[in-house]
């Protein structure tokens, strides 16, 4: 079998099997089905033709230094959205913020977070509120939490970096703020 076609078969199989590679695995159902659905080993899957066409497959995989990192393309994830329930609570929180009822707004966002704890948009919204409350360190933390939940979602990551930049600037950390802002812009352009 030609090495090239062998690689192609492997990739095609990977693509078809997705993340639940099973053939010889003893307990397929309980394999650590990592968060694969959203951010996992998809890169290979998403663009098999590109990989086969650009990579001299043979040496890269079987050569003496097999572990040289293949620069991975993260799968692009659709920008995060809010569920109708969260959307209603975010609007309510924004209205409360406008009225100056910051504890109320915090409570409304808490409610939304209990419904969708993994939604990065809610963490960004909470971070914005902490900015209003002049709790800049927490604003930054919320931004970083959002980042960790927005892998592959450039749009949301840009918003999180923007929040982090604002929180850094508010504390006079201007060089770091600029760095964060650059990241936000870079991601925003893509």
């Amino acid at each position, binding site marked *: 079998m030609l090495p090239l076609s*062998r*690689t192609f*078969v*492997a990739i095609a*199989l990977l693509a078809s099997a997705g993340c639940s*590679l099973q*053939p*010889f*695995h*003893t*307990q397929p*159902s*309980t*394999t*650590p*089905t*990592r*968060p694969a659905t*959203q*951010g*996992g*080993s998809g890169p290979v899957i998403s663009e098999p033709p590109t990989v086969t066409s650009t990579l001299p497959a043979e040496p890269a*995989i*079987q050569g003496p*230094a*097999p*572990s*040289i*990192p293949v620069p*991975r393309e*993260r799968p692009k994830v659709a920008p995060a959205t809010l*569920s*109708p*329930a969260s959307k*209603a*609570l975010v609007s309510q929180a924004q209205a*409360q913020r406008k009225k100056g*009822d910051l*504890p*109320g707004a*915090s*409570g*409304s966002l*808490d*409610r939304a*977070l*209990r*419904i969708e*704890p*993994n939604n990065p948009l809610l963490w960004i919204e*909470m971070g914005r509120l902490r900015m209003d409350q002049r709790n800049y360190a*927490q604003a930054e*933390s*919320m931004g*970083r*939490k959002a980042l*960790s*939940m927005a*892998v*592959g979602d450039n749009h949301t990551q840009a918003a999180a970096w923007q929040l982090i930049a604002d929180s850094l600037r508010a504390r006079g950390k201007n060089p770091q703020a600029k760095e964060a802002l650059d990241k936000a812009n870079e991601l925003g352009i893509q």
Partner: protein
Amino acid sequence: MARRKRNSKSRQKLQRGFAILALLALLALIILVAVLDRRVTQQFEGRRWTLPARVYAQPLELYAGQDLSSARFAQELERLGYIPQTPVDRPGTFRRKGDSVDVYVREFRFSDETQPAQKLHVGFDGEAIAALAGSNGADVPVFRLDPLLIGSIFPIHGEDRIIVSPAEVPPLLPDALKAVEDRKFDTHHGVNPLAILRAAFVNLRAGQVEQGGSTLTQQLVKSYFLDSRRTLRRKGEEAIMAFILESRFEKADIMNAYINEIYLGQDGRRAVHGFGLASQFYFGKPLAELNLPEVALLVAIVRGPSYYDPRRHAERALERRNLVLKVLADEGVVKRPEAARAMKAPLGITDNAGRSANYFPAFLDLVRRRLREDYPEEALTETGLVVFSTLDPLLQEKAELALSDELARQDQGSRKAARGLEGSMVVTTPQTGEVVAVVGGRRASFDGFNRALDMKRPIGSLAKPMVYLAALQSGRFTPASVVMDEPIELKLESGDVWKPNNYDKKIHGPVTLVRGLTQSYNLATVNLGLDVGLGPVAKTYVQLGLDEAPPKYPSILLGTAQLSPVEVAQMYNTLANGGFRSPLRAVRAVIDEHGKALKAPELEVTEAAPTEAVYTLDRMLIEVFERGTARPARKALPPGLVVAGKTGTSNDYRDSWFAGFSGGHVIVVWMGHDDNATTGLTGTTGALQAWTHLMASISTTSFEPLMPEAVEDRWIEFYSGQETSPYCSGSAVRMPFELGTVLNPNPACPPSTTPEEAALMQPPLPVVPNEDGVTAPADGAPRTSNPP
């Protein structure tokens, strides 16, 4: 003459003496009245009942897509005292018809707004809510029910009450009180001499106290201002004060004060005062929603809360309730047929355990302690604060059940040492850091020693993740790194020699990190920890949320640090939260009696440990269920539910721990004896069983954190750590590595091996003896692994 003079002189003297005496008596009386008047007026006008803080559970949030069936929703409504009836025409009622529920939600003052009473239509689609609509048919995106009242924070031997305004009192209640206790209430001036005479006559004839002649006003005075001593002087004071009260205040005010003041029952060390709390205490619903037989029962109880206790003396209480109903009919307060119908009704009290069903002392204890950090004791017990807590009542009940079932199973089991065990549980939600359930002991409703908070025990192998986290953080180790599982002797500062051993007394030689952790090898862990350094290991305890690092003894590597279940929950919560630390919260909001929001801890997150290291550690903790000490539990969990965790067993099997998490819940379980005797149980055979039971019975999500960008998945061989292909053997495991990590390829089965190639290998690969630990025995006895 002289004699007469003398006579008249002495008479004059006598008269003057009398006059002075009378004057003095009058003066004394005036002073007494003035003093009493001041006291009565001041106290009564201020109307300062000491009001214990009221604590609510978290409200049930309703929204489309929520995991809730119509049957369970109906159960939740009944728990809140909602009554199933048609039509649904007043607050506190609902109707379930197939897959839809109409509910008339009560008004409730939340911390941010007062939600008015309103009708709501909830449509279900099997196990989830499909849609919510208001009474006008408009779509409602999200709605919270009024939360469950779970208790009050009252002083020891204190009074507890829920104040009600006249608008919250059913009109029947004052009418019934007057008819039964004080028919002349509307006209008398505080005292009813005729009633006193009649009572005296009846009592004299009977030779004992059968009838009280006290008016409602006198009863109020006695309860409100005086202690219970029955002396003549007290009686006098009581009469004067009743008179003062009547002359200074309206009848309606006095009636309302009576309704809020009077003693109506005892709940352990808590004295139940007022009809507002009594209604919750006996019927589990607000006073305004009581029907005729229920009101009649409360009125019946007034005469003797202990004698007519409907939970302890149901027949007596029923008899007196029906007597009250008869009087109400005789007096024309209600129509005869109505009264007759009410007499046939059962007592309708919530349970007969003598305690309200929704009593969670261990959780309340946590709330009280958290509040004490911000509020002085008097503020909590006297000023009527309203506290919104994080308790999830359904989950709490399931946690209590999971623990008690497991303890009962051990009581019946073959291990003698495991009989009569105690236990404790803490459940949190990782992202928001909320404590949703706390079980403090075998008898969850017993307000005793709170093991979840106050019991500190060695955590055994629960400490291992901290060692591996420190190793990963150092940047010198990956899951594929090999450490030596071989004997070690350490000379301690005390001069003693420490010689740790593996649980199976075997030596496994070179093992990968992922194997060392999942199979809980002591020697590998100690060697790794010493390589990384005790300082960095101890530091992880603080990173994960402990206030203080444990002392840097080598034995902390194997879990000699003594922690409480709630401390363990804090640390594992940080692991479940991707390395973000959120101080655990038990309180969401506090408002004062006027509804003003007060200080309460807000949601906080702090990036405490590098995301990549925590992510990698968490992936190894998932493997504990696939190839490690928790594997026996796998089959009892819903298929496809990804969870992670660690077993823990302390020396001589004194403590059996399990700490672990899904995507939605962190659960920590401890089992052991209070006297620290051996249990004969490991983490696997004890605590893990209760953990699994609970995890399988709740609505939760898989643990699926997003892979950090700087990390990628690769297949390695579980035993050697060599990079391999998943197709060759069952011992290939997928683990995350930082980009650019150099791994040695498995020569026989390099990563590029295809399924076809793997199939051609005849026999499939000599590899890996199916070593112990991988196939854990079905009964969960950890023959093969370490003290977990």
